[in-house]
């Protein structure tokens, strides 16, 4: 039985230590906000924060995630019901279309803003490698700039 620190809570996860964190979150802990898109770290739909770093959870085995690391998922961004700056900018700019990739987008953008409070377009291009098939990239870029100004 592994113990994970997810969104500030200590959670027990009964799964094979090789199981990717993505599937531990989704199937073992029932936290389905983190999405499966490719399983090979290409699409970014499964992005979570591990010790503050945007990480593709399909590539992190439970054994590596459980060793005292602080994991934050999309469900843990809002504090006391208040959206974080990126979520609020996403709401104000009406960013999502289908929304499936947006958990990963929001996690990546939140980490970007924490590292670079005023990102340039080039910073955004470099940090935001998530795939969106609806094609929300233009709104994502605008919302990141808006969040930086907020």
């Amino acid at each position, binding site marked *: 039985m592994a113990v994970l620190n997810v969104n500030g809570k200590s959670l027990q996860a009964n799964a094979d230590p090789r199981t990717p964190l993505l599937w531990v979150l989704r199937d073992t802990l029932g936290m389905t906000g983190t999405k499966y898109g490719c399983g090979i770290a290409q699409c970014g739909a499964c992005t979570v924060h591990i010790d503050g770093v945007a990480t593709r959870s399909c590539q992190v085995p439970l054994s590596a995630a459980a060793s005292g690391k602080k994991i934050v998922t999309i469900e843990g961004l809002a504090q006391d019901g208040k959206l974080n700056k990126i979520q609020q900018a996403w709401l104000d700019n009406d960013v*999502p279309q289908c929304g499936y990739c947006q958990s990963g987008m929001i996690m990546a953008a939140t980490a970007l803003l924490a590292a670079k409070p005023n990102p340039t377009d080039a910073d955004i291009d470099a940090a935001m490698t998530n795939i969106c098939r609806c094609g929300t*990239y233009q709104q994502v870029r605008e919302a990141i700039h808006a969040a930086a100004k907020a």
Partner: protein
Amino acid sequence: MTIQTSLGRRGFLASATAVAGGFSLGFSFPWASAEAADVQELNAWVVIHPDDKVVIRIARSEMGQGTLTGLAQLVAEELECDWSKVTTEYPTPGENVRRHRVWKNFSTGGSRGIRESNQYVREGGAIAREMLIAAAAAEWKVPAAECKAADSKVTHSSGKSATFGHLAAAAAKLEPPKEVKLKDPKDWKIAGKPLKRLDTLPKLKGEMIYGIDVRLPGMLVAAVHACPVHGGKLKSFDGAKVEKMPGVKKVLSVDNNAVVVVADTYWNAKTALEKVPVQWDVGKNGDVQQDQITAMLKEGLDATEAFVGNKAGDAKAAIDGAAKKVEAVYAFPWQSHANMEPMNATARFTPDKCEVWCGTQNGEAALAAAAEAAELPVAKCDVYKQMLGTGFGRRGRADYVRQAVLVAKQMPGTPIKLIWSREEDMTHGTYHPTTMCKLTGGLDKDGNLVGLHVRISGQSILAGLAPQNLQNGKDPGVFSALNAGGPESAFGYNVPNLLIDHAMRQPHLTPGFWRGVNTNQNAVYSECFIDELAEAAGQDPLAFRLKMLKPKYAAVLKATADKAGYGKPLPDGHFHGIAQIMGYGSYVAGVAEVSVSPDGVLKIHKITAGTDPGHVVNPAQVERQIAGSFVYGLSAALYGEITLKDGAVEQTNFDSYNVMRMDEMPRVEATLVPSGGFWGGVGEPTIAVAAPSVLNAIHKATGKRVRILPLMNQDLKKGA
């Protein structure tokens, strides 16, 4: 807003199970408990709560395209309710059957969600409004003509007023009016406005439930692997080899062509599935190689037998007698939808009931597939639609629903969530059909196009998916954007002698509907070739088009070119390319601004896209559809290619099937020029001008004519 899967009270006894299913999924039903008894259904589209909350029923599926919000705007506009009180819910396909298809068509494809249903959903809103007014007039004992509805209230000329919530119970008892007059769009206050989507908040908090997120008590998860060669069969498998692996509950097969492992979690199911020894009978398709497909399509370019799609005058004679003859051959590959959310469905089967939870573009097709797989009457089945992690035409097919039900049937009573891996999804798609096209044009001495022959060779979607719908063997869809007339997808150029025909060639790989399909390849063929003709005629591509284009086409192209500054100086090394078509009932045009470095690196700087869809229900969402359609269309143009080796798809995931990321996306500026009088679609039409506008700009930049997609296989280097 939460998308709800249950229904109101009146006439909905059969939906009690759906409510139960909804609760177990953790959906929120703010009204279902305390207020349920007071909820009033005014008609199939409108339910009103005592606190004025309005529930608008949406039959079409939401997959990102914004139809859910747009349809709600249309109903709310006629209802005259307060937009802030609006929520939405999906009736189930089973309810639609039980209520004699009161919600009509559930199918969500071909950009038809709004254009096909706007009339009757608006009438639904208007009828409900008239009933509320009649209820108020009766209560006040005044003529209905002296009462008006606005902002969820009915007001009498004396100043008296009552809320919709107060009036709903009396209104629900009244006979609906036989006829209602719909508002003139120029008087719209809710429709036609750039309102925010209704379904955003749960998508920001990880709370939106997609098919893949469904969780039911006692549910198990299944991973599936079907024969890698389409049409192949399962010869044998050894489930005993993995039955002791962690979490594994059962190893089984479905339809004699796929192996399935059912386990406690997806990871355990997938891990075990990869270890199951399997023998396939790939059949004769297992010998098919990509170069054979190319040869098959090439042969069709000159075949004598072909279906005629559009004919005027005598194209062959006109071309033979022309002062100048131009000929070119183009090719368009198979492409994967690569939906963000891989195919999946959850099914629970018992001998007298079958229920399915899934994202689907066609709830009724999913219901039919579930009933057929379950071998139960439709009345004993239902489908609870979930949000789609994109659809693009792939989720109109219910093969994944069938598989889930066939697995659940072998484990009665246990809910089974069946998930396709990305690899399964990419190798078992229904692909954008592959075609080639030979175009021959004749110009007179003044550079006028006097004859044009467009010969398409290749795959028909209908022949692959629904051959019963062919018309004397012909697939009319193949001629999208090239048709002689009609409100859907007509060719825009006046050419005196014209022949557009199709030599159908059907390789074994399953074709399917795709965002913008058929208009996509036909726009590349016709709009790139028109550029070639303009060059041969020594004329500017815009001027050459405008002298032949019919008025609505010309107006959109002109407006788009003006907006882009076509013909005005561009930054050094930047070039414009243009394209236009009519598709899905709308007239669209695109101007691409690109540069190509001497070593062949393409940069798409900006796209200007114009559309005339007749009416615009939500300009903000239409602009997003247009921008998104270029991400999809340019991904396909740059990278989209599915190829075969030994009869099986070679590409398996985003590492071998690339798509556009943020750093490559050009700025897209949409220009909406609705001319009124008709209802066109918006999800798909503009995708078709993405590739040809860029290809035409590449020619300006490099002198090269790229005629074979995708672009990643072409060398744009100077001198190459």
